[in-house]
């Protein structure tokens, strides 16, 4: 169900029917950047993203459902967002996710690190649905 950044939640996703005995639901806070910065050694790379301290603290608050931060890397405005070949439709974007945990911050912004292997895809959706 799409909702507009209410309570620092952009999207709430729920199963239509029960999954393993109960309805599953989770919430996403979406962020985008046209200049994703990857840090760390090649075998343990992470997407470093500057998040508002306020957003970060809100994601730490107790919630009735699991909530994840998803950062979408997109091309800049002049870049190629979508391309088409005879057998291919390509989307020039990638997304990564993380579940924020830790202590609240009193800083204006804080850098969060999203492991690059945590791509936001069908497998990730499944994992999020199982997170309860």
């Amino acid at each position: 169900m799409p909702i507009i950044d209410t309570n620092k939640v952009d999207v709430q996703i729920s199963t239509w029917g029960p999954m393993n005995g109960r309805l599953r639901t989770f919430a996403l806070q979406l962020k985008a950047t046209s200049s994703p910065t990857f840090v760390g050694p090649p075998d343990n790379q992470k997407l470093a993203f500057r998040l508002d301290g306020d957003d970060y603290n809100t994601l730490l608050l107790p919630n009735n459902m699991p909530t994840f931060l998803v950062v979408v890397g997109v091309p800049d405005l002049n870049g190629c967002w979508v391309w088409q070949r005879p057998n291919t439709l390509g989307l020039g974007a990638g997304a990564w996710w993380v579940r924020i945990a830790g202590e609240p911050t009193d800083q204006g912004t804080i850098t969060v690190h999203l492991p690059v292997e945590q791509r936001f895809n069908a497998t990730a959706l499944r994992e999020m649905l199982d997170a309860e």
Partner: protein
Amino acid sequence: MKTWGEITPALLQAELQRIGYVEIDKDGPSGSTWVDPNNSGRPAVLVPHAYQEDLRGYGSLLESAIERVAWALEIPVSEAIERLTGRGDRFELRIVDAFTRGGRLPVIRAPHVVKGFLQVLRAGARAEFLGTQARYQGNDTEIVREALQGIDLLAPAEGSFRLIAVASLQAQMPFDPATAAPDNTRRAMAATVRGLHAAASVTQTKPTDDADLEPAINEGVSALLMTGLEEISKRAPGMAVDFKVKWDPSLPTVDAPDQGVELDQNQLNRVPRLATQLRHREPEDHRVVIGWVKTASADELAKAGHPSGMVIVESRFEGTLRRVLIELPSHLFERARPGTTQITAKGTLQKIGNRWHLSEPHDIQIREVGTQDEG
């Protein structure tokens, strides 16, 4: 316009039961899961736990559940909200005085009003489950607590200052509203309304004699009810209170008036004195009931030929013919025959629910019509 904010998890659960859903997971971390076992095409619904109201996602989950109810019913969300907010019995207190015009209540009075409102409901629940009494002692019993837990207070409504309690009922599906038994919360609310009507009547005049209070007590007027009214009207000379009730027509019928009741300034002025009068009233332990046995029903299949059970006796007291339920031990129950025997018994006469009971009966005498008394 009704808003989804008036909808509680209990209201959603009652509606889901009504439309054929069953709860398959009660204690999920986000809420309870409901599905329609006969129609897998309908969406599952996640009803958030009321006790998680303070958590961040509660509002979203509630909104989501309402939306899914709308999908299940194939109606617009706005219609689903109307349907949900129209469900459940509603009991409303409206305070009418100079201070509360404009929908405000001075904060210094607020605790008294809420406390008084709860006491009024508690008096109803106690009258229903402990029997009508002038005064109650001790804490709430389990059944009284259970009945009160089924009542939610909605956010104060716009307009003049109003508190609205809604009984969020566990509907029994399927049922016929005319024959199914109302649940405990509904019974408590019905007793509250009966008691308030009696309170409105008894405060019309100044009863000086204790005996004048008897009919009102039998209808649910108690020191607790009067104290509740006193709390509500505390620190507000010149006020009136207006209680309104709206019974959900889809739920089992209760024996209580449909109309609300208003207590004006003069009536409220008489409340403190009546509360004191009721508080000092001694419980009546030894009423005598004399009447003929109308029906007799055994508790169970007789063991060794000694059934025990209860009889309903038709008896006249306080000028009215009433039916009183009396439990009898086996040696007396065997002799109680409908239509042919008369019973005389002493005990505590109480109205529990809609029925008169003679509790702890003793000195019971059973007499065949036309014969000598037998002990």
